[in-house]
């Protein structure tokens, strides 16, 4: 299993670990059966993600993708956060082994799930904005 140094760095000292008790949005994706659960908390001020925290049960890649994804959306506008893709996450980590790409998909979905929750709490139907957050296809087949 060939992890990049960047992945190992983020794994060893993940950024933004924890919970936000007064979060404006909370998203949880994955399932324990496949060994992946990601939970993301966001705080939103003036259309910007002012704070973000995560908790993850999963492999090194899952923890590293959570960490870097939170870095990438922290301080970003909601619009930009919505544009976060798993391939951007993979790129930011200097690549992931092929078998670990699904962990990065989960990171993208966790961000979307937290934003969807935020919209819901605002009384806005998130589906037209965030889209469907399906289960990871691989996980679905379990």
């Amino acid at each position: 299993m060939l992890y990049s140094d960047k992945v190992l760095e983020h794994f060893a000292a993940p950024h933004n670990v924890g919970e936000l008790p007064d979060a404006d949005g909370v998203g949880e994706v994955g399932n324990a059966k496949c060994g992946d659960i990601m939970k993301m908390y966001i705080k939103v001020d003036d259309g910007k993600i002012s704070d973000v925290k995560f908790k993850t049960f999963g492999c090194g890649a899952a923890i590293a993708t959570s960490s870097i994804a939170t870095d990438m959306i922290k301080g970003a506008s909601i619009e930009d956060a919505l544009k976060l893709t798993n391939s951007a996450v993979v790129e930011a980590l200097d690549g992931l082994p092929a078998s670990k790409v699904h962990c990065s998909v989960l990171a993208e979905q966790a961000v979307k799930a937290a934003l969807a929750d935020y919209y819901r709490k605002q009384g806005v139907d998130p589906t037209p904005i965030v889209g469907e957050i399906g289960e990871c296809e691989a996980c679905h087949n379990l």
Partner: protein
Amino acid sequence: MMKRFVYADNSATTKISDAVFNEMLPWLKEGYGNASSIYALGREAGFAVERARKQVADALGAQPSEIYFTGCGSESDNWAVKGAAHKLAAKGKKHIITTVFEHHAILHTCQALEKEGFEVTYLPVYENGIVRVQDVENAIREDTALVTIMYANNEIGTIQPISQIGALCREKNVWFHTDAVQAVGNVPIDVKEQNIDMLSLSGHKIHAPKGIGVLYMKKGIVIPNLIDGGGQERGRRAGTENVASIVALGKAIELACEDIPGRIAKVSPMRDKIIDALSKIPYSRVNGDRERRLNGNVNMSFIGAEGEALLLSLDLAGICASSGSACTTGSLDPSHVLLAIGLSHEVAHGSLRITINEDNDQADIDHIIQTVPQVVEKLRAMSPMWEDLMKNKKEVKL
């Protein structure tokens, strides 16, 4: 954390010992002759190969003429099982008996044979990870070609009742193969007394290099070759003899089998110390029978701490270990071994295998005992699964 390096993945592979290295070195350097050649340089290599064959035979209670060198343990397994299947299919015997928790070298081989039309019975191993002799007996049929059951499991270290299975197969006149890759050097083996017809082993598990294995085949057992070609290994396994690695394996097995009780007496208390200490971690469990297990095998699960993340964290603390988590293999399913003994996916994901041997010392054990709980705690602290469990939002059966 302490700066210490603790290698505790000896069931995956071992370091070549100095004694073995020194024995093999001349054959990597000046002794490069082809062992089948007739000039002195070749003849000497040929003698060295035969000395090693004798060492292997002696360690197993076999005859040198029953020992075949192969390229690895997996090759030995494939050769034995595919060979026996194809040989006996000609006599109308197309049924194989094995267990659900064999190494993939056996399991995937059996699956390949199923595609060819063979029928395979996969026996259960129950919660303790030990197959029942009665189950083997019940499974044997008129058309059973082969029983293949591992001597000791590579993940949970449980030792199988090989002597009884051997006696049963002899009585029923069914060929019996055992994958003893993990057992050699840890359990006394006598192929004659134990009625073992074929046995696989691998050098790199006993301080010889990677890429060398053995298949023992009892006199009279003749199966098709897996690797056809030159006349090496009495025409049964082609390929220019890997003299250096063969010599290394000979030495390694001699050393591994020279004092097995001594090894058990030294290593198993260390194993027990680890198990006892880590069992204090809440929501943990020991996987596999506590008594009938390899002297160096610790296998435990810690709910809420994913296995691969555990390994990476331990690595940062200088500890090399392994896990049955799906995430370590790149597949979606956790270890078939852990599922076979009844663990749920969740629990299997949080598994850790520590395999020590006589090279480890008390300081290693202390480092492991000190580090694992910290790491488990750290991972649990960031685990939503653990959070749910603590908040009673979730139930998990251990």
